[in-house]
């Protein structure tokens, strides 16, 4: 797995600088997760471990590792 993420603070960095923090899933009224672990775009948490040490929200296509958007995770400030 090799791709790059553009940290809003640190700029473009290789993915090895980050730690995966899991998919952010929507939860239905019944409590079951939807859109989880499916091929396609998903929204994930990533932590910039070797950089600014902040949490990011990343939209990534898991089929080809194309990154569509990166922003601060809620609670982190820019």
């Amino acid at each position, binding site marked *: 797995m090799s791709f790059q993420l553009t940290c809003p603070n*640190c700029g473009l*960095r290789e993915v090895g600088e980050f730690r995966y923090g899991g998919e952010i899933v929507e939860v239905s009224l019944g409590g079951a997760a939807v859109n989880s672990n499916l091929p396609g775009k998903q929204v994930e948490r990533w932590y910039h471990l*070797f950089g600014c040490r902040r949490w990011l929200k990343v939209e990534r296509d898991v089929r080809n590792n194309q990154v569509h958007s990166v922003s601060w995770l809620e609670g982190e*400030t820019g």
Partner: protein
Amino acid sequence: MSSAPAAAGSRPVLRTPLHHWHNKRQARFTDLDGWQVPASFTGVDEEVAGTRHAAGIADLSAFAKLSLRGPALAGLKLEGKAGQPRGVSTYWSDGPILACRLTPDRMLLLASTTTISVLEKQRQELAPSAELIAGDETPAYAGFGLLGPRIEELVRHVSPLDLSTLAEESCAETRLAGVQALLIRPAKLPVPSLRLYVSWDLGEYVWETLFERSRHLGLIPIGLEAWKRLS
């Protein structure tokens, strides 16, 4: 049972994480406010010439470091590059002081002396009324000064960060030799230069890794006297 009385006026001897490494290479030490720092290894002229030809590295761990944190920092209007994300400004007070903006609410002030008071004074000048959390980070980070025309090549062997993308008067936190490191490009000096900071307890590991992976580049250790002459 009796204990020896403490010597009047005695003070602790402070050592950098590289002290044993320097000692083993017969460095000539000098005392800076109680800190034992290497003044020279093989001779100042030789170290200066070796650095100008390839690359030299100086142990700057003893120099004072002050961190500033808090949301109020984001609202401050600072002159120079430190006002921007990842920017570095140089101020002058008993030698150059580097102000590194790591994130909007986190800044690191780095002195070129061992006295923390120069940084506290600078903090007062920068943000006299702002509510900031200030902390002495001197014993938290080992600091190295890299100088010479081959330092970009050297960093390429230990970090995925492309140093050519790191502009003068800017800094970056990144992975170096597998650990988190802060790289700082100060304002233009007569020879290319870089400051490198890692966790204090990883200082010896990173220092040795730099030498190990750059044997072919001619990296040499330099003392403070050569470092001062070059920078």
